[in-house]
């Protein structure tokens, strides 16, 4: 049983499952896939132990799982699911459907390489390829952040009525054990109000969803998505601040590590951020003016905040554990677009580091930083392994 301030040794998967259980979703449609499956398994254990009272749906595919997520959410209940890689790809059509339906589903995605060729390794391209689907995307670094972010994601998603993904890398987070503070159900109850939408599928309400609309209505509908995304920055920040107030743990939408007065900034998402922190410590000790900026909220992309932080710096070294064939690192692309036209914008260096799950060591990061110090930046991302 959970007591106040319980501390446990949990994998990223189990930490996310604790977060989901504490949110008490009413419907959980879920399909197994490595390396996400321990989330599904843990949730069914919680159900058996009586810690969770949810309707489990175990359909024949991730596609049907997401279809049931959408319709259950639109029937007015809190919905959770989890997937990875091929499963996320199979859901792609319905990811658009979920955001278009304004269904605040929360889904954990364990970043994994997708076929071909087959692999099971940490690579963020699966979820980054879903960046235009209208889902919030949080990239988290460790099991604790996974648990905390699942709860923050529910709070934010249900406020702005958009679905949210909490993303972490295969094995580095999904299967790595770390010490995790598990909040009490009371803490979570005081943080996350019950989900009670005004509009839902119900014969007593009589509202329908998704009929064919004309061009203008469709366009207006897309604009409302834009407005909702714009709202996310404040809502997500408040959700993070409130959580910090209750548990002492807050992360920001972007996390700054030793960025004060840093001329050089490493930028990354996910576990590479943790490794980069030790590289920063070492390089700082050697006298280099450097810090780390971790992008935690990738969708919506915190453009204004990034412009504010990065204006006036000398250079940004972007490390992308993902790859868009034909245009390189996705965070690199997004950052260039975000900083375009900014006076005193830093030089931007983009390195493809850790694609396919290749291990990125502190030494590797130091090497890439040094490479950038002595070289010219290029518009193209450079393979840095």
């Amino acid at each position, binding site marked *: 049983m959970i007591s106040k301030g319980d501390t446990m040794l949990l994998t990223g998967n189990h930490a996310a499952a604790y977060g989901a259980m504490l949110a008490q979703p*009413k*419907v959980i*449609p879920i399909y197994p896939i490595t390396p996400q499956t321990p989330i599904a398994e843990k949730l069914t254990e919680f159900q058996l132990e009586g810690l969770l009272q*949810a*309707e489990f*749906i*175990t*359909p*024949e*595919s991730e*596609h*049907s*799982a997401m*279809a*049931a*997520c*959408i*319709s*259950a*959410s*639109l*029937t*007015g*209940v809190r919905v959770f699911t989890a997937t990875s890689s091929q499963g996320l790809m199979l859901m792609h*059509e*319905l990811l658009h*459907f979920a955001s278009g339906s304004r269904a605040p589903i929360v889904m954990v995605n364990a970043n994994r390489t997708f076929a071909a060729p087959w692999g099971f390794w940490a690579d963020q391209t699966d979820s980054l390829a879903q960046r235009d689907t209208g889902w919030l995307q949080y990239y988290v670094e460790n099991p604790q952040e996974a648990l905390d972010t699942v709860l923050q994601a529910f709070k934010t998603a249900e406020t702005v009525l958009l679905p949210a993904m909490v993303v972490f890398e295969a094995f580095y987070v999904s299967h790595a054990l770390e010490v995790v503070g598990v909040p009490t159900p009371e803490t979570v109850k005081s943080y996350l109000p019950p989900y009670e939408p005004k509009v839902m*599928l*119900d*014969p007593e*309400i*009589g*509202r*329908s*969803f*998704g*009929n*064919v*609309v*004309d061009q203008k*209505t469709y366009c207006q509908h897309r604009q409302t998505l834009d407005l909702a995304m714009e709202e996310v920055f404040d809502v997500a920040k408040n959700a993070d601040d409130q959580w910090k107030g209750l548990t002492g743990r807050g992360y920001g939408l972007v996390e700054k590590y030793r960025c004060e007065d840093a001329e050089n900034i490493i930028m990354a998402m996910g576990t590479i951020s943790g490794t980069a922190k030790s590289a920063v410590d070492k390089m700082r000790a050697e006298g280099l003016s450097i810090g780390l900026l971790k992008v935690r909220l990738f969708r919506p992309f915190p453009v204004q905040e990034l412009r504010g932080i990065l204006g006036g710096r000398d250079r940004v070294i972007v490390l992308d554990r993902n790859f868009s064939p034909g245009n390189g690192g996705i965070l690199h692309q997004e950052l260039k677009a975000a900083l375009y036209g900014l006076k005193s914008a830093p030089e931007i260096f983009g390195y493809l580091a850790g694609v396919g799950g290749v291990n990125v060591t502190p030494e590797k990061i130091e090497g890439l930083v040094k490479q950038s110090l002595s070289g010219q930046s290029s518009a193209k991302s450079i393979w840095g392994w």
Partner: protein
Amino acid sequence: MKHYEIAEERVFLPGHAACPGCAMALALRYILNTVGLNAVGVIPPSCMGPMMGANPYSSMRIPIIHNSFESSASTAAGIKRAFKARGKDDVHVLALAGDGGTYDIGLQALSSVAEHNEDIMYFCMDNEGYMNTGTQKSSSTPRHAYTTSTPGGKESRKKNLVEIMAAHRVPYIATTNIGYLDDLVYKIKKAKKMQGTRIVVLLTPCIDGWGFPGNDVATMSRLAVQTGVFPLYEVEDGEKYTINHGSQGMPIENYLKRQRRYRHLSKDQIEEIQKEVDQGWQRLQKLANL
């Protein structure tokens, strides 16, 4: 033949945007008006889409979700489970799909829902092709039928959906059509009282896709039964077959010759179809222990 009273609750109203004379609109009227107001409908892309009319209006007095093409069954299951979680387990959840959305792209989801015996009613409006996109073949299109994607006639036979779903041992499967409204309403009423996955396949002759006059949907519906092409029957728990209306020994030609999609048939092809229909009818009688 036993006579059944057709009492209707007005759930399906004027204002639908189906073709004039559409069999599906008539079928939908009796489905919705029999199930009543305590229901939610799931409508994938199909001729069912325009049935609701133009946004923001609706021809139906129940809430509808317009879902993705291949997910009607799983969408319906999600709604039903959410109602269960909300303590409103009495709401009927109806999937209203076409044959493309059932025999083809939606079969995987339907199989899963049937395997779990999810508590939904699934209606397949079978007009034997992708009529909403301009008459392309589906796996429900019968052999030799012309469609725009089988301009020389379809080479393979129609898939037997009922037997596939019967193999899932769902509590109730029925075939019916608007040529026998009393049968249709009887089956909806019966399905409504049951629980678990209930599947009703309705043959809905398509004026434009099949090519026959707009006032002939009832005639075509009856001919399909009388010739043995589409017998009306029930399967309970995958085991108990009951034939309600079947072949009256009428030659298949009487059905085929009234449709533009069969206009190109040779004598041999008609004989081939007759043979398949006879085999199907015999097989069904055997299953019903007749």
